[in-house]
């Protein structure tokens, strides 16, 4: 036995190292091979354009987006002082503020009542999640009709409460709210599905124990449901934020950014600058700013929000 040992202690390190290196190398290659499609596509359709966008944000471009002249930070400095862009930022922020908390709260409410064990609850769940199957285009058209000042149902509703007609989409005071309202409706389906799934993952026994202890519904909600749901809530809030920042379709169909730019959120402004005003430089600069906005909000979310999240 000792002979074998001697023989091997001499030769092992070299062979071993080689073998290990070979193994590692082949693993790396295999890994990259499997990742290749993703990497290639991300590279071409995400990283390259992102970098390209950053690059273009320092240029004046021609109508086809070909850079003409390096202007440094001029695009940014103009944007940051331009009342229009500031209005866009304000609209975006307001829009996010209107839609995210309300979607989540309403969806949570729906998820809570749909999480009870009742007869026929499946039908309600299906109905509550239905807007996930609705496209933005279809939903927006429906809402557009509902907002129609003359024949739409929204004004009928308002009249029912004895109030005067509202120019939902034409009055800058209401336009953003109206778009937000329809967006909340559109978001609820997905948010609801996610939250319901989260609720169903909570251990039933936690509630049973609370029942035996005799704590109230609200106490359970506050002390069990919300903390236990917090990872799900965190996820859905993050996703909702990102989505809210990227809202486009409903704005294009309902208001086209108007009236007086009150619904001209950054994404829409990017679209207009890039494709209507042929100002790709400015559009790129806005895209870069939007990216940082989302990044900051997401990072903040992770920094502040995740502390309150209870992972099991």
């Amino acid at each position: 036995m000792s002979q074998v040992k001697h023989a091997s202690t001499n030769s092992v390190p070299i062979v071993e190292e080689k073998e290990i290196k070979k193994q590692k190398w082949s693993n790396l290659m295999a890994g990259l091979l499997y990742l290749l499609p993703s990497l290639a596509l991300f590279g071409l359709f995400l990283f390259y354009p992102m970098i390209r966008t950053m690059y273009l944000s320092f240029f004046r471009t021609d109508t086809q987006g070909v850079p003409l002249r390096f202007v440094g930070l001029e695009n940014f400095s103009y944007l940051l002082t331009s009342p229009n862009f500031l209005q866009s930022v304000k609209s975006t922020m307001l829009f996010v503020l209107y839609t995210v908390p309300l979607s989540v709260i309403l969806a949570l409410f729906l998820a809570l009542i749909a999480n009870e064990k009742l007869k026929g609850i499946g039908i309600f769940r299906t109905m509550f999640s239905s807007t996930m199957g609705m496209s933005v285009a279809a939903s927006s058209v429906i809402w557009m009709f509902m907002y129609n000042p003359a024949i739409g149902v929204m004004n009928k509703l308002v009249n029912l409460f004895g109030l005067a007609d509202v120019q939902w989409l034409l009055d800058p005071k209401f336009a953003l709210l109206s778009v937000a309202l329809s967006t909340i409706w559109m978001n609820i389906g997905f948010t609801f599905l996610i939250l319901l799934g989260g609720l169903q993952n909570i251990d039933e026994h936690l509630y049973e124990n609370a029942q035996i202890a005799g704590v109230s519904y609200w106490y359970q909600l506050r002390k069990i449901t919300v903390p236990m749901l917090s990872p799900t809530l965190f996820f859905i809030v993050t996703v909702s934020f990102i989505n809210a920042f990227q809202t486009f379709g409903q704005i294009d169909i309902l208001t086209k950014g108007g009236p007086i730019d009150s619904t001209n959120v950054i994404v829409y402004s990017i679209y207009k600058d890039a494709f209507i005003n042929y100002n790709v430089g400015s559009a790129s600069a806005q895209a870069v700013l939007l990216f940082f906005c989302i990044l900051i909000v997401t990072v903040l979310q992770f920094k502040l929000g995740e502390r309150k999240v209870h992972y099991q």
Partner: protein
Amino acid sequence: MSMIRKSILYLLLVVSAVIMMFPIVYAFMISFMSGSEVLQGRLWPENFTFDNYKAAFEKVPLFHYLFNSFVVSISVMAGQLLVSSLAAFAFVFISFKGRDALFFLFISTMMIPWEATMVPNFLTVQKLDWLNTYLGLTIPFFALAFGTFLLRQQFKTIPKELYEASQIAGISRFRFFWNVVLPVSKTSLVTLGVYSFLTTWNMYLWPLLVTNTENVRTVQIGLKQMQTQEISTEWGVVMAAVVVVIIPTLLLLFLGQKRLQKGLTQGAIK
């Protein structure tokens, strides 16, 4: 559960359902109304007419658009499933240097707003000569960080021993992926599939940009087109188109709702 509690719950459920469903039902109703009924602002058609549907299909080649939407959605679905599952497989079953960093890179792409990349992407697609082709509508979406993430979480639940058992039996990595990992993760694949299908079906801005002809236009754009052409004058027709557009996805959603709900949370949170 006490009767009172039950009744309150049902009341809340019904009221919420009415509010949630109202716009959809309303659209259905309008799609069956005659023009004058619409203008009177009625909620319920006096006699159901299918004229609007006939008109909708005449005005815009809806069938063709539906077909396009199906082709695009199915392709993106298949593409995303394949590309994402390959990537997820690498992240779970192959250990190599820099794997975690790469994974983080993948996840971070979720933060890049699609719009921020829209202009260069458009130019790329144009250069590739993919405007007005299915390629332009599908390929850019094949890689999906969310899908990779979801599947990675699922693959991680596959017992390591299954992989090891195949290693001992001398089964190749790809065969293991294809014959074991994919079939075992059917549920998650279906979840991701439904999700992909729905989101692709509902895609709006990109098809708006990259299609100019009826050849590959999707139904959402058809809807938009219908709306710019016919709005105010023929709401009934527009709503008929809306109904035609939403029915496939609603059906899919109703069928896949349970699975989707489970699969989505499973992948999303843990």
